[in-house]
């Protein structure tokens, strides 16, 4: 009886696989959005009860080192550092790493802040021969600039970690602008709960938004199409996705543009790995494994009220590169942290989250594009499988749109920034429009990232060792 339900040819099998995947994706996203709604409500309640003034009392706020890797950022770096200096937090230091810039990044910093060679000592080893100089300023004691050979973002962050002195470290992108209370919001979970080791904030596209002296003067949606599509994506991914995963205590992604970590935890897991393009994601996955081994619950949190604004690509070529890089980073991070699934002490929660990352996030573009090709082929040959077509359109497109709508709605509750109804209306329109071309394009870019990851599979182990050597603590320098 059951055999009659099975597909009879290869086309049928492909259609069935895509259908199963489409439904699984839809169910997962609906569940995540449901959890995200619960989390948003909890977040609102938590914010009402938050004891913010206490954080400003002397000695109570955990000091933060802000790590800023910069590569060819001559045009923006001075403004970025100035904006970081204006953040509302009792105790911060800023460690900028000039990661082998070929432009005048270091010169711009030197002339703006009066930098001089500094004799500041490192508390951890920096990869031999990579550090070219350490600079500080008598006028700005909270600023340190490291000049290193170009070794990539992970190595730059490891160098910054070696020179950072505070118990919490906040990794930000050099071109991001943090809102004035962002650090305070990110630090609150550390203050309220001793089990927290990492918090991530909300990254929003800055295109279109008006800034004045490094501060947001008016939040606006960009006038161009690509940033608008990306705004919808960011809201969907950050609010629907991350808040949902946080509620399930399986958050694997903290954006590289805004994340606050316990320095001790980062050092204990070995610092940033240069073996992957997704060093931020990979670090969080390792921290999750580390936390699980220590029985820590809810160690990684997402704070929607902590906001950083960042420029998103306005050209298709840049977007293609960015998405391919992100997807390659995801693939590499999942591979390097397969211990989340294959462990001697497996956790059902993490196994489920890991499998979801593999089948829905990583292989998502594969399923989606196969489905599209099959659909087009069926239409071209006049053999359209109607139930399959209905499923594809209904689940992929309608499901995706519903998912985006949840993201836009959650924004209104968790971190409203766009005051104009017009911007929200535009976002709703772009949530629908993205199904007609943009979504398929990004799936293609992501597929390229997956292919790159597969091509570079054998290089992972070799570079991984460099990342770990970079952050070996020298607290017991002569013990070895």
């Amino acid at each position, binding site marked *: 009886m059951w055999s009659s339900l099975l597909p009879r040819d290869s086309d049928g099998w492909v259609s069935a696989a895509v259908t199963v995947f489409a439904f699984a994706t839809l169910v997962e996203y609906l569940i995540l959005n449901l959890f995200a709604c619960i989390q948003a409500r909890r977040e609102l309640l938590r914010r009402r*009860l938050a004891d913010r003034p206490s954080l400003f009392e*002397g000695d109570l706020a*955990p000091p933060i080192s802000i790590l800023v890797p910069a590569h060819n950022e001559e045009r923006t770096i001075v403004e970025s550092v100035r904006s970081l200096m204006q953040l509302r937090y009792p105790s911060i230091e800023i460690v900028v790493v000039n990661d082998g810039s070929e432009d005048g990044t270091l010169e711009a910093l030197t002339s703006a802040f009066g930098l001089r060679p500094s004799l500041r000592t490192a508390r951890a080893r920096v990869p031999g021969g990579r550090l070219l100089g350490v600079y500080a300023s008598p006028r700005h004691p909270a600023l340190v600039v490291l000049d290193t050979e170009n070794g990539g973002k992970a190595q730059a962050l490891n160098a910054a970690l070696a020179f950072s002195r505070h118990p919490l470290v906040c990794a930000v992108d050099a071109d991001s602008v943090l809102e004035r209370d962002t650090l305070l919001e990110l630090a609150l979970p550390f203050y309220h709960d001793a089990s927290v080791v990492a918090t991530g904030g909300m990254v929003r596209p800055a295109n279109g938004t008006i800034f004045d002296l490094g501060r947001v003067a008016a939040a606006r949606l960009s006038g161009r199409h690509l940033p608008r599509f990306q705004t919808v994506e960011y809201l969907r991914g950050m609010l629907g996705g991350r808040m949902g995963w946080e509620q399930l205590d399986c958050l694997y992604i903290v954006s590289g543009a805004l994340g606050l970590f316990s320095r001790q935890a980062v050092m204990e897991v070995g610092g940033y790995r240069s073996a992957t393009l997704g060093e931020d994601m990979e670090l969080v996955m390792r921290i999750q494994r580390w936390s699980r081994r220590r029985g820590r619950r809810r160690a990684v949190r997402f704070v929607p009220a902590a906001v950083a604004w960042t420029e998103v690509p306005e050209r298709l070529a840049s977007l293609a590169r960015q998405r391919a890089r992100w997807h390659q980073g995801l693939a590499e991070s999942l591979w390097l942290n397969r211990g989340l699934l294959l462990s001697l002490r497996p956790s059902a929660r993490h196994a489920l989250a890991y499998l979801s990352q593999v089948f829905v996030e990583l292989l998502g573009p594969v399923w989606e594009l196969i489905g599209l090709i099959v659909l087009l082929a069926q239409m071209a040959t006049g053999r359209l499988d109607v139930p399959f077509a209905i499923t594809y359109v209904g689940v992929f497109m*309608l499901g995706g*749109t519903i998912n985006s709508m949840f993201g*836009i*709605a959650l924004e209104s509750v968790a971190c409203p920034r766009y005051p104009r109804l017009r911007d929200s209306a535009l976002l*709703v329109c772009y949530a629908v429009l993205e199904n007609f071309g943009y979504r398929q394009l990004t799936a293609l870019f992501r597929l390229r990232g997956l292919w790159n990851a597969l091509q570079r599979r054998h290089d992972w182990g070799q570079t991984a060792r460099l990342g770990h050597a970079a952050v070996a603590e020298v607290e017991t*320098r002569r013990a070895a």
Partner: protein
Amino acid sequence: MPHWPVQPLLVVLLCSALVTLVMGVAVLRWHDSLRRRAARDDTAGNAVGVAFARFLAGQIDRDRLRARVQEVPPRALWMAIESFAESIEGEGWRRLTAELRDLPEIARTRRRLARGTAWQRALAARRIGLLQDPTQRGVLFRAMETGPALVALSAGLALARLHDAAALDWLMQHPESLAGLGRHQMVALIKRFGPSALDPLRRALALEASEATARLAVIDALGLWTDETSRPRLETLLASGELETRVAAARALGHLAAPASIGPLDAALRDRAWQVRAQAARALGSIGWCAAPAVPGLAARLSDLSWWVRRNAAYSLGRMGIVGEHALGSVAESDRDPYARDAAREVLQMMDWERENPGGQTHVE
């Protein structure tokens, strides 16, 4: 020409479009209503704030104040109370809250403190606490006793605003009621009790509370209040406590910065744990030039295995005037240990920069 079954596809597309349209409109309406409500609450909250200020200035009487307050939504009222409670204290606030205490919304909030979810009760405790009404002590105390931790913390903070020493005593005796609370947050809670907390804290320190977070928070708070009476006990803990207790005791003695503690802190520079050595070095720096007898001990610590100890010892020497600077100079020039030389040179450079920018921002920790 292939035959395409257009009809079912069209139906699906139409249905999808309809669902999308409905959702889109719902999202926008919701967004708009939230925006309007926030704007309305802001306006009403500001109006209440103005009414508070005018009442305190004697420009309106209590009836007009109450009438003004009762016509705004509860959220706006609490917004105004929150912002006022942070900005004014003392007699003015007490006069104002005396007029507000029997409003229907306040009575409702009081009832919620006893009956409701943990979140509702915690929020109610926070709000009642903002009013600084001593007659609410009983109900807040009961909420704190009943828990759970979320409510106990909120009620504890509310009682702290009333400087209720009995509440702190109870918390010190029942640290389990605040299970999961971080040390910093507990210190903040204790500090909110103000000077009335000193006696309960001294008692807790003498009894050595069993719960680690509470014990460390007590030590930290006494240090932050520079409670000289607790110094002998802190010195005893520095010599004989557990690791975290010894670290906290060294930190507290650093806040006290009493020259009488130089001996115990100098001895702690030879502690087996680097965390204690680092904290003791820093504490000696806080005492400043009076701690000159500890200079040889600190100079020896410039060759410590731990970077933190070397760093803190070097910076502390930098705060000990000419004797410390001389010690740093000789280490920087002739010490055989390159790590000690580096630490000394770093601080000497910072001191040069400090001299170059007197009154600047360079701090030699």
